């Protein structure tokens, strides 16, 4: 069987084949790995790697889709702000399409709400500078990869002495979520492929303690097919030899200490907090919030809002998908009542969501 149809186009076809061959040679039993990052989920599906390796390795898809885990009440807060006359809510395009407890920010715009997509948080700062009479709120979601972008934006706003820019912060941290998964009573994961770009920012030294505690290999992995296969192979090497270590298979982008400038910037602006993740629940130390020194730029203080925690629509099983308990096609609504054009839950919307990846690349195999 050779399902890696997309890799056919590769100059490095031979390298991909060698890696697959090596994985098969090494492997004496079927192993279960979790790729944490949604970008990697899409790569594994798009290039046919998950399917090609299915007999040897089960790939469970992790919660690394930032807009998917942004809690409903955070979206509801942004929605409330969007309907104030003096406010323009800005965020990444993906975030605008994710349904809140009733509707998305994009549909709020259709209903007269003030909502704009921006390419970067600094663009929202520029918008604030250009519209001094409007309050510009940037809805700051994402992992440690995105936190440097929102941190520099708020520093720029302070530098420009802007009184009309604020952040509605719902940043999340990867490692506490991996810890929650590793400590769950029904954890199937035998090794983690760690999110390459989070590690590019934060480094991977902090995984030593995680590995020592949980005895699960952690392999820093990239996004390109060869990178993904090398990550899987390293995990299989370790599992077959009974080792559990931190390994870096994305060395052309990631250094052990990460990016010191980016880490310092995030540390200057944000502090760790507990956070409720959509579909998963409260995660200890699972989020970032603005430090008190930056409170002048915190939308939660500028615009007191009262939002009650709400529940996911009954039929959507995104919580089970995000925690790796089921694959998207195991949800009864997948591809029928839930599609990218009319999603029930966030993982069907986002370019990093597991449901969207299956809908786009693997529907023919499941229908």
């Amino acid at each position: 069987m050779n399902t890696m149809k997309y890799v056919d186009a590769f100059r490095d076809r031979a390298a991909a084949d060698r890696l697959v061959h090596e994985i098969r040679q090494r492997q004496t039993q079927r192993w279960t790995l979790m790729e944490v990052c949604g970008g990697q989920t899409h790569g594994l599906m798009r290039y046919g790697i998950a399917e090609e390796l299915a007999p040897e390795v089960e790939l469970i898809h992790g919660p690394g889709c930032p807009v998917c885990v942004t809690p409903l009440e955070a979206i509801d807060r942004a929605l409330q702000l969007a309907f104030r006359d003096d406010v323009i809510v800005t965020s990444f395009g993906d975030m605008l399409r994710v349904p809140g407890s009733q509707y998305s920010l994009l549909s709020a715009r259709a209903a007269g709400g003030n909502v704009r997509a921006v390419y970067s948080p600094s663009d929202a700062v520029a918008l604030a500078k250009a519209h001094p009479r409007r309050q510009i709120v940037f809805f700051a979601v994402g992992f440690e990869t995105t936190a440097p972008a929102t941190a520099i934006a708020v520093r720029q706003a302070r530098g420009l002495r802007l009184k009309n820019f604020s952040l509605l912060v719902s940043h999340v941290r990867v490692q506490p979520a991996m810890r929650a998964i590793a400590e769950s009573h029904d954890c199937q994961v035998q090794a983690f492929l760690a999110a390459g770009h989070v590690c590019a920012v934060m480094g991977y030294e902090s995984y030593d303690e995680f590995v020592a505690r949980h005895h699960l290999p952690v392999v820093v992995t990239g996004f390109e097919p060869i990178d993904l296969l090398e990550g899987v192979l390293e995990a299989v090497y370790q599992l077959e030899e009974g080792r559990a270590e931190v390994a870096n298979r994305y060395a052309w982008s990631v250094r052990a200490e990460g990016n010191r400038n980016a880490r310092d910037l995030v540390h200057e602006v944000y502090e760790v907090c507990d956070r409720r993740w959509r579909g998963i629940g409260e995660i200890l130390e699972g989020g970032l919030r603005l430090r008190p020194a930056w409170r002048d730029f915190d939308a939660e203080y500028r615009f007191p809002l009262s939002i009650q925690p709400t529940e996911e629509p009954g039929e959507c099983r995104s919580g089970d998908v995000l925690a790796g308990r089921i694959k998207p096609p195991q949800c009864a609504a997948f591809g029928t009542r839930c599609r990218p054009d009319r999603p029930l839950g966030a993982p069907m919307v986002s370019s990093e969501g597991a449901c969207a990846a299956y809908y786009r690349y693997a529907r023919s195999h499941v229908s």
Partner: protein
Amino acid sequence: MCLAVPGKLVRWLDRDPTFAAAEIEFAGVRRRCQMACVPDAVEGDYVIVHAGIAITRLDTAEAERVIAELARVESNTSPVDKRHLEP
């Protein structure tokens, strides 16, 4: 949000520590990007840009190899991709 496509630093636009910015080229398209986290990057370097800010400098030889491969994959697989999008 998590695009792994490396971009090439064409020229610096601003060297201020907070407002640092440079023109970065992605597959022929140039875009202004925030550079506060990679202040030591020089013209010709490759960086990964995430949400408008460069978050890491790349090994140049490896970045060029990957860009060449991605270009090849895109040109060869887009018809297949499109077919998959059709219901």
